[in-house]
């Protein structure tokens, strides 16, 4: 298997990130989000998205200052579920951030690729509760129509009236954002499209919170990846959309280039539905490095999946150690300490964080950190962002089902 293959065309196009849109619990829009990363803000607060009566604790990283009407103009926001609202809003932000008009995007061959874990499960929560209380005949048809997860992508197409567009919704759970970025990279690299709007979106829902709670993996108050006293995840929500285009296109229009997508790797543990596998994660990292044409010593920091559970952090760090060597461990951070685990959005938002980190020269911190777990033994850039000259960063994403996806981003430097 030629996992290091960089494309089959003689001179495949280089792919760059020129626009970022994010909806997170520490900031909406890339500027507010970046400020939040730099300041090490935390988005945790008591959950209001659903009734939490009966849970001993119910904190999460909910987005509480999101006004869909500010971002969604053409489509009636009520026709979209909350995750679709996030994906559409983040897309408008990314287009504007890229300095493009909607008409300019519409005139190009485009790809819309959105990853998710839960789709519109919050609406499913509501429908099923209604069904239990008064029977399915009382379903609100507007809500029922919002449920198909394909609307996370098709909502974007409707809002921006895109015509020559390929659309995919990728439910590869908590690694879905990186899958979407990778697909956009391939589509642009091959010349199939001229612009790609890629990322992920998810909304807090009771089903997922409860599932993790039942597994005993919800932290009571704080998400503390790599800390010896870490107690688990905090569920979060939001969206991250990256506008990708070819380097030639970006240069021709004088666009600001956040980062270059150097490559990515996908692999599947094929072992266990929940437990991550160190060797398989290491294999995914290796595939990504080969695909990007980089070596471990070139990676300036790793944006880890870093959920804050005991199993994830030890296994993931073990995989990183396997590739990098115990004596050459990269700085390994988790922004989930700030924004919680936004499921299908997580790795897309993290990719956006990597892109601004490359541009602005800082490493986002891992907050809520008291003492590093010796079994993890990484420099997680505790509590305060760190200034750093960065060239290449790695964004890990792992999911239930052993779906692993790793994206490599590099700082773009002009040849001049």
């Amino acid at each position, binding site marked *: 298997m030629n996992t290091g293959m960089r494309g*089959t065309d003689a001179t495949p196009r280089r792919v760059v990130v020129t626009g970022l849109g994010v909806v997170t619990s520490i900031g909406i829009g890339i500027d507010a989000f970046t400020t939040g990363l730099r300041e090490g803000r935390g988005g945790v607060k008591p959950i209001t998205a659903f009734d939490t009566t009966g849970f001993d604790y119910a904190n999460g990283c909910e987005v509480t200052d999101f006004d869909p009407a500010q971002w969604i103009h053409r489509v009636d926001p009520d026709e979209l579920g909350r995750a679709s609202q996030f994906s559409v809003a983040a897309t408008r932000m990314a287009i504007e951030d890229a300095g493009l008009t909607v008409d300019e995007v519409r005139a190009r061959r485009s790809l819309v690729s959105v990853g998710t874990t839960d789709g519109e499960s919050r609406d*499913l*929560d509501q429908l099923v509760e209604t069904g239990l209380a008064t029977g399915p005949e009382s379903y609100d048809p507007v809500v029922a129509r919002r449920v198909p997860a394909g609307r996370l992508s*098709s909502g974007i197409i409707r809002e921006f009236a895109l015509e020559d567009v390929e659309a995919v919704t990728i*439910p*590869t759970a908590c690694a879905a954002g990186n899958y979407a970025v990778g697909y956009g990279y391939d589509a642009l690299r091959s010349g199939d499209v001229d612009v790609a709007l890629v990322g992920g979106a998810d909304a807090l829902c009771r089903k997922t919170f409860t*599932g993790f709670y039942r597994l005993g993996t919800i932290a009571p108050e704080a998400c503390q990846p790599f800390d010896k006293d870490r107690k688990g995840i905090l569920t979060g929500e939001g969206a991250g959309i990256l506008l990708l285009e070819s380097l030639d296109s970006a240069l021709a229009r004088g666009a600001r280039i956040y980062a270059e997508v150097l490559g990515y790797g996908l692999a599947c543990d094929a072992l*266990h539905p929940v437990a991550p596998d160190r060797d398989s994660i290491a294999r995914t990292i290796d595939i990504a490095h080969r695909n990007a044409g980089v070596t471990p010593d070139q990676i300036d920091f790793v944006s880890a999946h870093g959920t804050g559970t005991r199993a994830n952090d030890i296994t993931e760090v073990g995989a990183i150690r396997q590739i990098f060597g115990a004596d050459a461990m990269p700085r390994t951070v988790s922004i989930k300490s700030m924004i919680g685990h936004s499921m299908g959005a997580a790795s897309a938002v993290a990719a956006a964080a990597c892109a601004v980190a490359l541009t602005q020269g800082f490493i986002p911190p891992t907050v809520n950190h008291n003492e590093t777990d010796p079994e993890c033994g990484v420099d997680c850039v505790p509590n305060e962002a760190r200034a750093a000259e960065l060239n290449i960063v790695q964004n890990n994403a792992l999911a239930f089902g052993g779906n692993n996806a790793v994206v490599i981003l590099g700082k773009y430097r002009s040849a001049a």
Partner: protein
Amino acid sequence: MSRMHVVVTGLGTAVRGLGNPGELLGDRRPGGVPADPVERLTGRGLRYKDRATKLAMVAGEEALAAAGLIGADGAPTVPGESVGTVVSTNFGNVDTVCETVATIARDTYLGTSPMLLPATSSNVVASWLAITHGLRGANLTLCNGRTSGLDAVNWARLLVGSGRVERVLVVGVEPDNPAVRHLAPEQDEFFDGAAALVLESAASAAARGVRPLAELGPYARRAEHTRAVADVREREPRAVGLWCVPEHPEGIRAPGASLGPGPVGGVRDLSELLGPSSGALGVLQCVAGTAWLAGAAPDGADDVVLASAGTGDTGRDDAAAALILTPARSA
């Protein structure tokens, strides 16, 4: 992306009343009370698997075995890293999700089983296929509306063409259960089944000594059905011997073919035959088309198969996709 020749080397189905993929070409609905295909599954671990996963496992195993990629023990005969998995399903595990939500609403979280959490993950079908057969290559799931099945076949082609894997198991599956019926109240018929195919490069098939059954031709996804079909027909102008049409094909036309009750080698409306098959349709079409090319096409004919899913602007879908399958040639 890739100009590599990608071929179909194995087919599988899990549909009540269908004994083998070739029966997708029959004109009659499966009759009687045929056995449930998931009854073919045996062993432990079935309790927490949803219906879509079980159907996909049946069809997937049949396709992998037909392609010679697994042995009698279900283990791969090639390195697991070389085999990817792509699943298309729009409803997927919605039954498990709805049951979980209902349990929480009724009995609080204490009523839920920790064993069920993995089964609520949206990628569960592809994950179980991978775990069952040790398929360790790229593993992904699409829920792309009515074009999803054809999109999945094309994505599998891209994975092979870009060198990320050597071969891919593609499965399209939709379950029929109360949760699906509640979410699609406008439907009065439901498809319950799965279809699967194995794709690999022509060179890989030749190296393994496996006979290619069909080759993937051009694919397009457009806002209008007419444009999607015109796009692929422009790139592959050979005569269409079989056209597998979208759900609700009323009012759409394809160059060189017309709607109507056609014999084998004419027009196939698999949704009419089996029920609206949503995310499974594109894969069902490719399985039927491959079966036709591999066995039912007239001797010496060079006709191709056109599959189209989603009616786009013409109907009520947000997009339309078209894919052509051609007779297989050697590497």
